[in-house]
């Protein structure tokens, strides 16, 4: 389609790119400025004399938060991949009584807004002593990956039957067929779910906000919000923390962009 010439298209696209990237560029440049020069009039987007010392100061505070974020993201990704791929495999390829009914019931739960069960969940977790631990931030998530199960089922449905039959003839157990033969065929779906789960866990605000009080258990993004007045009193240091909390995510996204976009479109229109 040729609505506009190539040059004007580049101009328009570049203007949009500036709008979308400027706040992120400003964040990085503010993190490298002396505190007195963070908010300058007229505004500046590029740092003049980089204060790398800001990062040295911030890295005295944040390793524990960073580790918590990494650890929780890891637990969620591995757990959800295992639980969802097992369930997805069973729903797609095994025959058993009650299979389709169970699948429908699982899907039906996704129409209830999370807040409706988050409140009672909180009360139950408080009763069993899970408040101010990290269990509520991964155990319930790992055990309820309805959406990921749906995606894995779709993916397992497309694997050719001959592969499964060959495994059966070789005498492989059901688990062996799932683990060694079928699972490697679903790598794109696994990658998409892995990226989604990583982002969701890393960027989660609500969970850490309501469950974590001890600072040594807090995740990086939420620590920035909670301990803002305590540790990150200077804007430049806050922006260092913000930058560190955004960079791993952008890196994962750049690295796995293809799977991420595939995942979005897969869930979007073919569901």
């Amino acid at each position, binding site marked *: *389609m040729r609505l506009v010439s190539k040059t004007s298209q580049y101009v328009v*696209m570049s203007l949009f790119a500036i709008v*979308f990237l400027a706040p992120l560029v400003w964040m990085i440049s503010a993190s490298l400025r002396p505190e007195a020069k*963070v908010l300058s009039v007229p505004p500046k987007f590029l740092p003049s004399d980089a204060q790398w010392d800001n990062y040295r100061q911030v890295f005295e505070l944040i390793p524990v938060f960073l580790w918590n974020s990494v650890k929780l993201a890891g637990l969620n990704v591995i757990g959800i991949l295992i639980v969802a791929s*097992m369930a997805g495999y069973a729903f797609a390829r*095994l025959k058993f009584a009650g299979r389709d009914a169970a699948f429908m019931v699982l899907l039906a*739960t996704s129409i209830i807004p999370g807040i409706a069960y988050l409140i009672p969940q909180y009360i139950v977790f408080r009763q069993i002593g899970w408040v101010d631990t990290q269990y509520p931030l991964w155990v319930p998530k790992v055990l309820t990956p309805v959406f990921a199960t749906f995606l894995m089922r779709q993916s397992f449905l497309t694997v050719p039957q001959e592969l499964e039959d060959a495994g059966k003839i070789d005498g492989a157990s059901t688990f062996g067929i799932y683990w060694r033969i079928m699972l490697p065929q679903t790598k794109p779906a696994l990658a998409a779910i892995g990226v989604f789960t990583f982002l969701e866990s890393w960027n989660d605000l609500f969970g850490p906000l309501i469950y974590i009080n001890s600072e040594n258990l807090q995740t990086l993004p939420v620590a920035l*919000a909670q301990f803002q007045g305590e540790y990150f009193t200077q804007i430049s240091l806050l922006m260092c923390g913000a930058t560190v909390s955004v960079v791993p*995510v952008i890196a994962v996204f750049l690295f796995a962009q293809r799977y991420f976009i595939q995942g*979005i479109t897969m869930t979007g229109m073919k569901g």
Partner: protein
Amino acid sequence: MSMATVTMARDRGTVQVADVRRARRRQNLTGWLFISPIVVGVVAFQFFPILVSIGASLTDWNGISAPKFVGLKNFVDLFGDDPLFLQTFKNTVYFTLASIPLTIGIGLVLALLCARPIRGVAFFRTAYFAPYVTNVVAIGFVWFWFFQPDNGVINGLLDQLGIPGPQWLSSSSWAMPAVIMVSVWQGIGYPMIILLAGLQGLPTEYFESAKLDGAGAWRQLRYITLPLLTPHFLFLLITQFITSFQVFGLIYVMTKGGPGHATSVYIFNIYQNAFSYGKVGYASAMAWILFAVIAAVTYLQWKLQKRWVFYT
């Protein structure tokens, strides 16, 4: 046939039936073992809490002492005697009605720009999508400083153009538009990707015959591209409504619902009632009203699609 062979055949039959039965039982067991983690999880962490939540919505309960059954009083109070509930509801509708057309509209423009195979298109697509993957705390803070009235970036730029900027987050009429702007900026990547996938999947024959008929680019867009994308628009309307109506993070980081209650939205109100004031029963009632609203609007959109969604 002798007596002996008949008995043997019958025995073999029984053995086979028993075998089949045993095999089927094994199959059932294997299947349920594979799905047991998610079944246990959904029962324990969703079904059970949902039942508790339905019950709680009919009680006066602080989550600690014994709940007191009050029937529909929470619902009656919410609609009849809680101005904050009605205001947060209106704020949420405002937020939703403004952000949905903006995200889908600008998302469409970006998708159309990115659909043309030109050099460097991957860079632009990534740039537009980048805010979508960043966490709301980091970008909420960045924009918080951008919107500072005296020395923030936005008013600084407006000042260069000779326009006096408003008080943004500390103004009760400008705080909501400011939050909406940030939300649109962050959320646009999603509709863009969905529509881009839609554009790339359009059959080329239509465009070729339209070109032969002498239809220009605008007419092709208006009469071919947009009608063919209507299923994608329906999908986006449904999903964007569900997410916008439950906005929380940006509000929490940027305004905490203020100034006054100017940006207090539905989920923020539930959050405060449940986790700050300990009004668990009341907050649960609000959660179920939210469910009813989302279910009703989704159902309505699904029913109305006949009027405007075009399926090939």
